[in-house]
């Protein structure tokens, strides 16, 4: 578990920051790499515990399959939802152009 397929601590932080869509300054990367290593080292105790045959506990609610009647209900008006957006048109959120740009592979 200690060996990292992402590479060195700083490479790991870069890779994970990319996955998390988070830009980091160089100094920030270095500090985080150090802290990351120290946190993960502290967490290594988990690896030493025998958990064979134990089923994971996903949540604490012990309530499942809660369904209400499948009936349409009014939503909040679009205008109210858009009011908090940094940029929007009358009915839509506005984002940078995604077609025909480097970031637009989706």
């Amino acid at each position, binding site marked *: 578990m200690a060996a990292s397929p992402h590479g060195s601590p700083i490479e790991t932080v870069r890779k994970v920051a990319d996955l998390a869509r988070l830009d980091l300054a160089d100094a920030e990367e270095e500090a985080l790499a150090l802290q990351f290593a120290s946190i993960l080292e*502290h967490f290594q105790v988990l690896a030493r515990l025998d958990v064979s045959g134990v089923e994971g506990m996903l949540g604490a609610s012990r309530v499942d399959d809660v369904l209400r009647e499948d009936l349409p209900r009014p939503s909040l008006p679009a205008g109210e939802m858009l009011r*908090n957006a940094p940029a929007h048109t009358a009915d839509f959120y506005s984002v940078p152009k995604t077609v025909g740009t480097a970031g637009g592979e989706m």
Partner: protein
Amino acid sequence: MSALHELDATALRNSIQKGERSVRETILETFARVDALDPPLHMFLNTQRGEALSRAAELDQRLAAGERPGPLFGVPVALKANMCLAGVETNCGSRILGGYRPPYTATFVQRLLDAGAIVVGMTNMDEFAMGSSSENSAFGPTRNPWDPSRTPGGSSSGSAVAVAAGIVPIALGSDTGGSVRQPAALCGIYGFKPTYGRVSRYGLVAFGSSLDQVSPFARSVRDIELAMAVLSGADENDSTCFDEPPLQPEQPADPGSLAGIRIGVPKEYFPAVLAGGVRERCEAALARLSELGAELVEVSLPHTDYAIPTYYVVATAEASSNLARYDGVRYGLRVEGDGSLQGMFAATREKGFGPEVKRRILLGTYVLSAGYYDAWYGRALKVRALLARDFERVFEKVDVVVGPTSPTAAFKLGEKADDPVAMYLCDILTTPVSLAGIPGLSVPVGFVEEGGKKLPVGMQIAGPWKGDARVLRVARAYEIASEYHKAAPPMATLAPPRNPAAAKNASTGEGATRGARA
């Protein structure tokens, strides 16, 4: 007649109902205290003075018209700034949500309003509820009223201090790994995390969804019970919420007796790292519980040492997913970056999140990433099951378990700010309860003295799943036999008079102002 800060919510409501004070006077006095105490303590991110006063006038009219007052009629309350009240800025202590005004009201906030409560303002917090000291707020720390050079604990820091400093009798926080119980302990008040599923989370900004629980602070057990009766109950907007009527307190024949109650004392909850004074105060409280008739039983929760890593894997995994929504599109901050969509996301998040939130997003993303999921996240879920099983076994033999809430009393601001692991260890006694989803209450059990200042110590009473009422019953018996919950920090009692008329007559301190009032 008692001064406002000496009254709990129940007494205040009764006082209003009897006509001893109007709702308007109550709210004016509340804001006089805000004006005096918020500058040194920094409890609030915003206050709702105008709205509160017009609501007070409305409530006074309704009372005069003969309306039967609700259980929180005229009671000022404070909300943590991760709770939704339509139209009121709630920014989670973060730059990334600066200016966010939710278009809807949380179910639990609506229930407070329907019960007659008046919202005073939104309180300061560690950014996105991640922290144990308030130092992760983007807007500066909140200070402990017992010693302003120290932390009030976190993350529900402003709400805890608003209650401890006598601004409001009840405030809401959210508790994911201890964020209400720990500040309650450090501020000398009650803080109750109910069983997961007891209170709807609809309208609470999500951090760790399988752990988050709306949790009240108060200065009396009956106020915690009152708040729970109002807050709890089914909500069709949160499928994890129990389909049950609101929580009702147990009514033992003798509330002061614990005869027949078995109290488990986990040996793991008195570890070597425990500060001496904290150990002493908790042992004294256990002795008192025994005098009240409870049987103390030594028990073991063998996986306690695994709780911190398990909690930080589970909570950060859930946080990394929940906080993916802050990307500069729907609310809050946007930073254009390199002009691409992906670049805008990454630049917005870089600028908008503080260091601890970034650390946790990265940790959560890491433990969920390909090649790590089974070794970290999958394994943590299994250890979580073992922790829950520990409690289930113990609760076959005892009614509640009791130990310290926090390993230390309030520490100095700045003392742990640069050491994430040291800060995470603050949660060692609260996270097991969170992971198991069971109820836990922090109860004031006395003081330690440091640097000439009295600092409160808290004791956690935890109960089995859905055993909320039993936890509160044990706390009530202790409360009857103790005075610690009545102690107020010196600066709270030196606050200025409750209204301008009284101010004219006030010579020194609050004794004069009390007398000056009809």
